[in-house]
């Protein structure tokens, strides 16, 4: 048993719903109690879909449990087929139905429905949403893909995009455009917008482009093993990775890697002098593994930030994140406990958080700038405009999105020069934001999980051993809030190293000189 306030991932059957809802011509019959239908609103409200997800819930109640839930399931499955006439059906159980062990797959097979029926066996009490999506896509691919000849012209499939995915719609469009420039046709993109017929002819492609390992790697591996299709390993997020991705694709397809970069503006935006102020800004990154790793690379190598924290919530990918973190001299944070993430953010004192909807909560509480880079996301992260994360346009979008929450360069200088102006003070927030930000609230430390609590205790113990003299404390307050936490931390660290217990103005400036970049 584990106490959870917020969860990064839903249960595995929600992952299955993301696949079914993303596809066309598929219907999902889900053995589930009344109330599990809440999941519809993820798609109709958060993603603003204009159709009900293609999911029939059996919605059994207590009175059904004593009677015959198996018949209820069969009736629901038959009814769903009759009404929706899907080309393929998936059947499965949610967490509660898993306990009553009705075997949806077996029950559905007794109906003899005239379409492929794919049973899902998703362990609700040990796995989560991404696993559910990956398994479902794999199960559908295994059931539906038929051996077939490769297309005459070079082609590939794009794998992994689902409903409710973070910018999946636009990423697929962006990558399709790059592939088209290289003369590579897209045989099928799946699961998002694919039909069962598209899955049947997946083996006709020459290779696979895997955009989202979290939800598509199972299918990519199976297609490689069964149908001999190699798949791309580079995720084209950021200008550098996009170029490498193009080279990887070019090698697989035997075509030129020359792609028009005229619309890639991010490198110049980053090189232009106005961006100088971005140098070394401390950024904390947390999300799904794929997006977090990619964001760290863009943050350091393309924008010039300092990565001070890196982690992911999906343990399945812990290994790659750990090894990526080493590259930044960091210990990766692998957890799905939002309080642990909060504690790590407090300890790292970043100036910018790149995270999920959960980190947006944390950033709001702590008064730290934040941009969203990964699912789970909310309705405001499904924009009306074209806004990919991948490819060259994606690189442009990342620059704009991450820079927007920060105080701009000259404004930052003015704040530093005239610290006590009653109108133009740091607590007023960046002036290009409409709403006037309230002063950052004092962080309220939630007692947290053990590891995080230890980190905080260590920091507090350090602070208690040190005493800030009133002059130094006043001087510290003159430092703009977005660097104040860093200054305090550096000074205390410096003082501790030097064995100084009374922090004076001199200590503050000695520390500043010591850590000068």
């Amino acid at each position, binding site marked *: *048993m584990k106490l*959870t306030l917020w969860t990064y991932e839903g249960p595995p059957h929600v992952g299955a719903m993301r696949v079914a809802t993303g596809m066309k011509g598929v219907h999902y019959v889900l053995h589930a109690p*009344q109330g599990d239908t*809440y999941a519809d609103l993820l798609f109709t409200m958060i993603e603003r879909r204009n159709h009900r997800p293609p999911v029939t819930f*059996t919605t059994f109640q207590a009175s059904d449990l004593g009677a015959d839930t198996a018949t209820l399931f069969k009736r629901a499955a038959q*009814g769903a087929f009759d*009404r929706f006439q899907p080309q393929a059906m998936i059947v499965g159980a949610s967490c*509660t139905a898993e306990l009553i062990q009705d075997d949806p797959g077996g029950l559905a097979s007794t109906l003899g429905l005239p379409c492929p029926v794919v049973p899902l066996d998703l362990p609700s009490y040990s796995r*989560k949403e991404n696993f559910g999506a990956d398994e479902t896509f794999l199960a559908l691919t295994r059931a539906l893909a038929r051996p077939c000849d490769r297309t005459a012209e070079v082609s590939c499939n794009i794998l992994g995009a689902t409903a409710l995915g973070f910018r999946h719609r636009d990423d697929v469009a962006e990558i399709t455009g790059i592939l088209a420039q290289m003369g590579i046709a897209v045989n099928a993109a799946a699961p998002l917008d694919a039909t069962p017929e598209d899955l049947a002819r997946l083996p006709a492609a020459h290779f696979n482009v895997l955009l989202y390992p979290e939800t598509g790697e199972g299918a990519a591996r199976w297609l490689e093993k069964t149908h001999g299709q190699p798949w791309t390993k580079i995720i084209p997020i950021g200008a550098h990775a996009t170029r490498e991705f193009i080279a990887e694709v070019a090698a697989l397809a035997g075509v030129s890697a020359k792609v028009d970069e005229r619309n890639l503006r991010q490198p110049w935006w980053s090189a232009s002098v106005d961006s100088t102020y971005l140098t070394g800004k401390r950024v904390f990154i947390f999300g799904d593994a794929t997006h977090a790793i990619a964001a760290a690379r863009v943050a350091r190598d393309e924008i010039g930030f300092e990565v001070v924290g890196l982690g992911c919530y999906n343990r399945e990918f812990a290994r790659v994140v750990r090894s990526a973190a080493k590259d930044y001299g960091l210990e990766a944070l692998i957890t799905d406990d939002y309080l642990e993430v909060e504690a790590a953010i407090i300890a790292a004192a970043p100036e910018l958080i790149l995270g999920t909807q959960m980190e947006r909560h944390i950033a709001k509480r702590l008064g730290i700038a934040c941009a969203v880079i990964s699912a789970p996301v909310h309705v405001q992260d499904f924009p009306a405009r074209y806004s990919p994360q991948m490819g060259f346009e994606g690189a442009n979008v990342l620059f704009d999105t991450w820079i927007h929450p920060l105080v701009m360069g000259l404004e930052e200088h003015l704040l530093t020069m005239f610290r006590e102006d009653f109108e133009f003070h740091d607590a007023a927030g960046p002036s290009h934001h409409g709403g006037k930000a309230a002063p950052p609230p004092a962080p309220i430390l939630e007692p947290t999980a053990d590891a995080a609590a230890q980190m905080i205790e260590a920091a507090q113990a350090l602070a208690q051993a040190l005493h800030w003299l009133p002059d130094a404390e006043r001087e510290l307050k003159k430092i703009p809030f977005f660097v104040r936490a860093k200054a305090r931390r550096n000074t205390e660290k410096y003082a501790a190293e030097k064995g100084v217990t009374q922090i004076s103005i001199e200590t503050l400036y000695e520390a500043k000189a010591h850590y000068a970049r």
Partner: protein
Amino acid sequence: MSLDTPTTGCLHAPVLRERGQREVFCGLTGIIWLHRKMQDAFFLVVGSRTCAHLLQSAAGVMIFAEPRFGTAILEEKDLAGLADAHVELEREVERLLSRRPDIRQLFLVGSCPSEVIKLDLSRTAERLNARHGPSVRVYNYSGSGIETTFTQGEDACLAAMVPGLEETAEANLLVVGALPDVVEDQCLSLLTAMGIGNVAFLPSRRASGAPKVGPNTRFVLTQPFLADTAHALEGRGAQRISAPFPFGEEGTTDWLRAVAKTQGVTLETFESVTAAPRARARKAVAAHAETLRDKTLFMFPDSQLEIPLARFLARECGMVPVEVGTPYLHRGLMEPELALLPNTVLSEGQDVDAQLDRHAALNPDLTVCGLGLANPLEAAGHATKWAIELVFTPVHFYEQAGDLAGLFSRPLRRRALLQGAAE
């Protein structure tokens, strides 16, 4: 119009009873407003990742603050050994209470999985009460989807609190149902102005303000979904005041009149206290009624507020209900409402696909439905009002009557605005 207007109403109308897919929330959803209402309470759901995901998906639409609720997520090993599950749960509660010393009331909330594996939360609650009482009071109730639909979660929660209420022989008035604080204050000031003293609310904002109950207690419901709570209070000897629910000018007046009658308030006092707010409410509703008059109304089952709201929309706003769906129809509580509701199709329970077909055939001017259906119906050309807003917005009593009407007129006005601009 008032109660004595000759009307056959829906008292004897046939009810279409449906069995099929129910597109409704489970009772856990009530935690979203209950945890804000009771400021020293924590709601600990004992359930699965699905429960946690439901709460944040339903809540995520609305709140961005640190929640006073959480989910103890059952894992594989908890399913294997139930004895261990109890131990694990107690350990999680210990942790929680040491982390949140401000908690005075802890609700252990059962879910579908905890009920199917027959995890006995009352036993855990008893043990925890022995250990942490009286400073922390531990309750348990079920918010599971197999037992409860949406607002029934509040009913189960309040009913669970009733046995623990202190006994009194004094005459008092108990107003039952979680109301927004501003509405509760308005209600109290109306009652006080009529000279009614000794008024208490269930639930109270804090544990220390919990009402007392006994044979001289009269209670009145502010929400139509509190059947089990009413039953529990009657079990403690309290007497229920039967009334329409306080939605709109008419509903509020009838509700107050029913209360006033039991408290010996004179007609003059009643009139003088209610005259001004009644006039205000009528005026505020009238502005929206212009938009709503003669428009047809279809209500999908959601919160059990459907019948009182249809009554308000029909009688005060001039709408024409063509189908009023409700997850449960509790005749005992709903009698005064049914008597007022103009004849219409009443449906109880749900078979969502069949209901969508009826809806498409009727093509109503306004559809009240849950979040899962709203956008698909909008996209199909129907003006909709999401039902969940009705339990998250102050809508009771006189001063909110105009706001309540506004919730329904806004989708129609918006549609007209966007269409007007497109021409």
